[in-house]
């Protein structure tokens, strides 16, 4: 388990039905690229989050495949349509097999 991994998500609490909202997500993660060397000249092994997905009530909004070129603390901003009240489900997949999840409910009206 990579240490200090903390997802943060910014989603409006309320929206009108059919409204487009902007979502910002950030997860603290060192995103070791596998390119760096330590003091002894040994390559530090790659350890990144390799996939991020966002779904709303089971319908996909965005699915990102990530390479080591994504910066430390991966940040994504994107738009989503909210057709009805429900819940956003964000998932991050770590190289080491860990899965980090976060849910945010959105009210309509």
């Amino acid at each position, binding site marked *: 388990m990579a240490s200090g991994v903390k997802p943060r998500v910014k989603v409006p609490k309320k929206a009108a039905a059919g409204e*487009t909202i902007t979502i910002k997500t950030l997860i603290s993660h060192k995103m070791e*690229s596998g*390119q*760096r*060397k330590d003091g002894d000249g040994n390559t530090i092994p790659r350890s990144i989050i390799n996939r991020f997905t966002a*779904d*709303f009530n089971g*319908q*996909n*909004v*965005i*699915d*990102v*495949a*990530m*390479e*080591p*070129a*994504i*910066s*430390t603390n*991966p*940040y*994504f*901003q*994107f*738009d*989503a*349509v*909210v*057709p009805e009240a429900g819940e956003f489900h964000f998932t991050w997949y770590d190289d080491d097999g860990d899965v980090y999840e976060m849910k945010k409910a959105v009210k309509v009206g």
Partner: protein
Amino acid sequence: MQLTRREMLAIGAGAIAMASGLPAHAALDEIAEFTGGAEMGEGGINITAPEIAENGNTVPIGVEAKGAVAIAVYADGNPVPNVAVFKFGALNPDQSATTRIRLAKSQNVVAVAQMADGSFTMAQAPVKVTIGGCGG
């Protein structure tokens, strides 16, 4: 046919890159993998990137392609050109996304969008990097 084309691209990449502004040879193979060697159009895709990035460790970029099902982003001067592939679902209204990437040196950021009809379109943006971001 595809293989011949790819070989030709690899051989001619240097010259073509100078002449017509195609991405450098390093990223072409990866792009061909994404597109399956299909022809690429232009337009319909936008990259938002700074002209000068002081810190290559975190360069904010945005991509947008209305009607795309997927956008792949490449950095042609990085040790590994692949950056990310964004796939857009049914609830995504405008097929755009913003993130932060690492750039090893001054180079082109290339975005290739796969449209709903199966066609591909490409755009690129040059970024000058003051401090490289791959710890090399």
